């Protein structure tokens, strides 16, 4: 065992880790931004709104993240949409995460008592303002913990981007393995970096949970 291959290529691991974090961060923001309106649509009375949202949730949760990534990178050019590797990876990962995020947000919205909706309506507050100012702040307590742990899953999932030609942490590692042939040292290092990123995120999650405990 010789970890020189790691110390000689520290810049490469650093670049990969930054790229992993960036992809995961953008994916998290996009998937939550997409999931929130879908979660609201899912429980609307109109079937034209609730059915598409339900169908999206099911497809997103029943399909492997890797299949959605391949779809975004290899499949979309088939209908004339060409995305570069990084945007394609972010699109695939976001589609995959959005289905779960939708269900977390729905659970949060449903945990707010019905009477809160009724009271807002009785006071003549428009539905959108009621959601934004009254319902969502209360739902945050239920929503934040699973969304934050989903961020760790997105970090893990972002490794799949290496399979659609993205040079994030795992991609850089695979390239380095292919010309140094030191898989043991390189993969152990990569695993340690992922664990370090996760630990940082879990501390951030505890901070968020404290922050939203009193809503």
């Amino acid at each position, binding site marked *: 065992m010789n970890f020189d291959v790691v110390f000689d290529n520290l810049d490469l691991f650093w670049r990969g880790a930054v790229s992993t974090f960036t992809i995961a961060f953008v994916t998290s923001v996009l998937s939550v931004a997409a999931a929130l309106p879908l979660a609201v649509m899912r429980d609307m009375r109109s079937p034209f709104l609730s059915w598409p949202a339900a169908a999206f949730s*099911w497809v997103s949760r029943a*399909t*492997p993240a890797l299949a959605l990534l391949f*779809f975004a990178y*290899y499949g979309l050019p088939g209908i004339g949409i060409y995305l570069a590797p990084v945007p394609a990876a972010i699109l695939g990962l976001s589609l995959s995460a959005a289905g779960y995020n939708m269900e977390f947000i729905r659970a949060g919205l449903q945990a707010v008592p019905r009477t809160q909706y009724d009271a807002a309506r009785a006071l003549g507050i428009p539905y959108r303002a009621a959601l934004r100012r009254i319902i969502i702040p209360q739902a945050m307590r239920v929503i934040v913990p699973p969304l934050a742990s989903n961020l760790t899953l997105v970090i893990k999932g972002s490794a799949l981007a290496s399979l659609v030609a993205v040079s994030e942490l795992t991609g850089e590692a695979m390239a380095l393995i292919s010309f140094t042939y030191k*898989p043991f040292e390189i993969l152990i290092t990569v*695993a340690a970096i992922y664990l370090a990123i996760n630990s940082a995120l879990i501390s951030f999650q505890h901070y968020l949970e404290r922050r939203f405990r009193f809503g």
Partner: protein
Amino acid sequence: MDEALSPTMDMIISLWPRFLDATLLTLAIFVIVSVMSTTIGLLAALATIGAGRWLSMVLAAYGWVFRGVPELVILLFCYLALPQLGLDLGPVGAAVLGFTLISTAYEIEIFKAGLAGVHRGQFEAARALGIPLPSALRRIVLPQVVRIVATPWITYATGSIKRISIASAVAVTEIMQVTKQAIAFSHQPFTLILFASALYATMASILMIAEIIAARRFKQRFGLSTELP
């Protein structure tokens, strides 16, 4: 419409035997991994009942690693790094080992939560009645654990079957790998990926429906057992 569809249908029909083999391989890996990780996870969770703190610490470290590192990195390790240490399992063997290591980490958590959900008084009552621990576990504790863990176990299994797609990265000819090979010569990526996704989605959907049924069926009984003092 027939004319537009038929080349695509012909391609799917000609590839069907390969996709069928790939689906069966996916299912076989899923079953082997599930059986092994459930057995080991249950035994490890049971062992924490009587054992000291060191075992809990070892299991916590194990869970931290195998639930924190991406599945792809663990599979690559089993496929590329283990042969260097003299353990060459081949693509399928490496994938089965990797997924079993990962799933075991989650099954331990599922069964630990299940055991924690059984009231301590049940263990004490069994002991007071002179029932030996092994038969108390088998006849009294485990039937209750099964009800508690049924839903989370199926939820995890749904994710588990989807994750087998990652084995395509270590040359296992499961569904995504066959899809990649077919794309290379047929140039119909859109249809092929849609078809592969449908195969995975069908398997996942069966488990998702089972999850809903289990959640309904065990809700009442679980609710009853928590009402006991």
